[in-house]
C-alpha cells in the first residue's frame, strides 16, 4: 500500500475539520487548556517541593494527545504516554486525581504506587505506561489482536516518541501488526528530541517511511493542529475498523520544555524554539474558535477555576499508608478487563452503539 503524506496545515480553519461540530472544537481546546494548565500547576508544585521524583510535561504538543484521543470510541483502548495528558482527561480522569497522582497521594490514580504520568485508569480503558519505551506498542498490538480475533469493531491506539523507534519493540510491534493486519493506531510523536538526542542521531530513514516496509499506511500530520490530528486519527480508525490494518501517524511537533523539569534544554537552538512557539497548538485553536465567535476567555476561565479546585482537593488528600506498601502485588480475585471510557466526540453519539 502506498504511503500517503498529508500536507501540514499552517493555520486557519482547516478542511480537515469537516467531521467536527462547534462543541467538538471547543472540547478540543478545553482539553488542551486543561492539560497545559494542569502541567503548569504541577510544575509549580514541583518547584515548591511538593511533587516527589521527576516531572515530565507535554508543553507545546498538547494537540497530539487531545486530537488523537478525541477520535477514540468508548470501547476502544488506549496506551498513553508521558506527554499525552490530554488523552487521560478526554477519557475521563479528573484533574484532582491527576494532581493527586503527581503528588503521590492516596487519591492519585496509582495510589502512590507509580509516579508522574505512569498511570492509566484501567476502568476507563487506559493502560498505564512503563518506562521502557516503546513497550506499550506491543500491548496495544495485543489488544488489537484480541479485537480482531473476536470480530469486534474496536481499535487500540498507542503513542510513542521519535527516540523509542530505535528499540526492538518498535519493530516487533509494527511487524506483528502488519502481518496480522490488526486494528491498531500507532501515533509517533515526533517532537524533534529524545532527551538531548536529535532526530539525525536516531534514524537514518524517517520512521513514517518505514510503515510501508511493514505493509501498512504511514501518514504525516501537523502535530500542532489539533483538528488535523483528530482527522488523521479518525481516518486511521476507519481503516482499522474496515479491516485494512494498522496506521502509523507521524505527528510532527516540538517539545517546548526540557525532557523533564530538571532539564533546561540548552542543546536546543533558540531559533528552533522561537519558530515553534509561533505554531503553538493552543494559540492556533484559540484563534480558530475566536474566528467562529466562541468566547475563548470564558473557556480559559472555566478551566482555570477547575484547576484551582483540583489543586485544593489534591493538596488536602492524604499520603498513602506505609502499611500498604507491600500489598497488591498479585491479584487475589478475578481478573477484570479494561473498562469503557468517555468519548465526547459528537460523531459517536450518532450511532445507537455510540460508534461512528
Amino acid at each position, binding site marked *: 500500500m502506498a504511503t500517503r503524506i498529508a500536507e501540514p496545515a499552517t493555520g486557519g480553519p482547516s478542511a480537515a475539520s469537516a467531521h467536527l461540530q462547534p462543541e467538538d472544537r471547543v472540547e478540543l481546546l478545553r482539553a488542551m487548556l486543561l492539560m497545559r494548565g494542569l502541567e503548569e500547576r504541577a510544575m*509549580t508544585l*514541583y*518547584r*515548591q*517541593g*511538593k511533587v*516527589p*521524583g*521527576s516531572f515530565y510535561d507535554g508543553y507545546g504538543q498538547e494537540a497530539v494527545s487531545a486530537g488523537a484521543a478525541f477520535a477514540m470510541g468508548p470501547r476502544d483502548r488506549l496506551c498513553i504516554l508521558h506527554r499525552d495528558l490530554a488523552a487521560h482527561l478526554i477519557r475521563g480522569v479528573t484533574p484532582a486525581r491527576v494532581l493527586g497522582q503527581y*503528588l*503521590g497521594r492516596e487519591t492519585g490514580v496509582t495510589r502512590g504506587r507509580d509516579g508522574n504520568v505512569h498511570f492509566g485508569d484501567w476502568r476507563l480503558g487506559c493502560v498505564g505506561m512503563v518506562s521502557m519505551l516503546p513497550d506499550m506498542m506491543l500491548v496495544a498490538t495485543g489488544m488489537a489482536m484480541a479485537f480482531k480475533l473476536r470480530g469486534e469493531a474496536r481499535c487500540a491506539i498507542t503513542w510513542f516518541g521519535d527516540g523509542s523507534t530505535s528499540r526492538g519493540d518498535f519493530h516487533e510491534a509494527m511487524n506483528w501488526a502488519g502481518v496480522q493486519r490488526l486494528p491498531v493506531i500507532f501515533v509517533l510523536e515526533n517532537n524533534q528530541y529524545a532527551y538531548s538526542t536529535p532526530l539525525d542521531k536516531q534514524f537514518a530513514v524517517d520512521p513514517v517511511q518505514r510503515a510501508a516496509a511493514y505493509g501498512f499506511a504511514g501518514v504525516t500530520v501537523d502535530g500542532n493542529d489539533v483538528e488535523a490530528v483528530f482527522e488523521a486519527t479518525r481516518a486511521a480508525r476507519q481503516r482499522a475498523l474496515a479491516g485494512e490494518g494498522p496506521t502509523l501517524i507521524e505527528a510532527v511537533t516540538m517539545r517546548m520544555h*526540557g525532557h*523533564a*523539569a*530538571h*532539564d*533546561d534544554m540548552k542543546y536546543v537552538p533558540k531559533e528552533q524554539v522561537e519558530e515553534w512557539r509561533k505554531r503553538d497548538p493552543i494559540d492556533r485553536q484559540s484563534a480558530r474558535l475566536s474566528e467562529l465567535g466562541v468566547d475563548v476567555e470564558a473557556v480559559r476561565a472555566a478551566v482555570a477555576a477547575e484547576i484551582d479546585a483540583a*489543586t*485544593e482537593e489534591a*493538596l*488536602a488528600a*492524604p*499520603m*498513602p*499508608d*506505609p*502499611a500498604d*506498601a*507491600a500489598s497488591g502485588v498479585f491479584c487475589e480475585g478475578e481478573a477484570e478487563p479494561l473498562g469503557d471510557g468517555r468519548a465526547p466526540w459528537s460523531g459517536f453519539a450518532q450511532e445507537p452503539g455510540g460508534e461512528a
Partner: protein
Amino acid sequence: MSSSPTETVVDVTMPQMGVSVAEGTVVAWRVAVGDPIAADETICEISTDKIDTEVPAPVSGVVSEILVPVETTVEVGTVLARIATGAGAAAAKPADAPAPATAAEPPVEALPGPNGARARQANGNRRYSPVVQRIAAEHGVDLSQVPGTGRGGRVRKQDVLAFLEGGGGREAAEAPLHIESPYRPEPAPAVGSGQLSRMRRQIGEHMKRSLETSATCTTWIEVDMSRVEAARRRLGVTALAFVARATIDALREHPSLNAWLEGERYTQHPGVNLGIAVSLGDDGLIVPVIHDAHELSVEGLAARIRDLATRARARQLTPDEVRDGTFTITNPGQYGSIMATPIINQPQVGILDFEAVVKRPVVVTDADGSDSIAIRPVTILGLSWDHRALDGALSAQFLASVKRHLEGVVASGS
C-alpha cells in the same frame, strides 16, 4: 513551623530539580524581609547542576526571614526563607501537605522463639546442634552422658533420641535404690503446690506496685510502753488502740503524713481515715478503714478495731469499709518480731508498724538527773514513708510525736 490563631509561618525550601540532584545554589533574591509576596510569584532564583530556575512562593504573605544568602549552596530541603501569612489573607493557599510518612520499613523477620536464645552447651570441644539441644532441654538430658555416633563423635539427633528411648533423661539421673532392683521411688507430690490464690496474687500485685511507685524508706523509734501497759490493763483494751490514738494525734501535728500521692498529685486530708491491717491467716490480709478516726477516743478506736477485725475475718466487710484510708497501721501480732519494713498502702505516704512489746532493761533518768537501769516494756515502732512526699527529718519528728503521746499516756487512760 510556628502557628498562632492569627499567623502561620511557611517555609520556602530548596527544591529537588531532578532525582539525582542533591543541592542547589541561591543566585538571586527577588524580595527582601518585610516585602509582601503572592503565591506562585518568584521569590528567588536558584542554580543546580541540571538547571537554573526560579522558585515560586508557596503561599501569599510577607517575607519574614531570608536564611540563605546569595551564592550559598545548600542541600535540597534546606529552608531558604520564611513567609508569614495572616489568617485572613485573601489569597491564602491550602495548608501544606501533611509530612510525608517515612518509608515503610520492610517487615522485620521474626527470629526463632524463646528457645533460640539458649546458649550452646559446650563441653570442652563438644558442640551440640540446635535440635539436639532442644530435645535435651525438653527431656532434661545431660548431653555429656550421650554417646555420639556422628562425625568426629558428635551427638546426632538420633543419638539423643536413642538415649531417651533407652531410659536416659531425668529418670536416669535418679540412682536406683538397689543396684539389682528395678524399683524406682515415686516422686513425692509437693505439699501446697499449685497456683497462688487470687487474693494472694492481688496482694502481691499491690505490694509490688507500691514498691515500684513509692520511694520507700523506713525509720524506727523505741517507745517506752509502761504507761500504755498500765492504762490498757485498766481499760481492758489492746495496746493497738493506744498506738492508733497516738498516731492520730501525731498526724494532726504533722498533717503532711496524712495524705495521698497519686502520680504528681499530692492531697492532704483534714481528717484521719485510719486503716488497720488485719491478717486473714493463710489467705492474706485486708485493711479495713476507720473513717474519721480522729473523732474516736481510745475506747472508741478499740471497739471499732475489734468490730472491723471480726467482720474482716468473717468476710463481712462492705466495700466502703476498705476505702479512702489516709494512713495505715499494721500490727502483725505478738509473735516476738521486733522490727519490720512495712510496705506503704498506696496511695498513702506512710504506714506505721507496731511489733512486739518486749521487756528490756532501759536507762531511766530521775528528776535529779541520776541514771539507773529499769525493766520496761519497750516496742520499736517502724514508719515506712514515701521519700517523694517528705524527708527523713519529718518522719523522725512524726515518730517522736507518736512516742511522746504514747509515753505521755496518763494512767487514767486519756
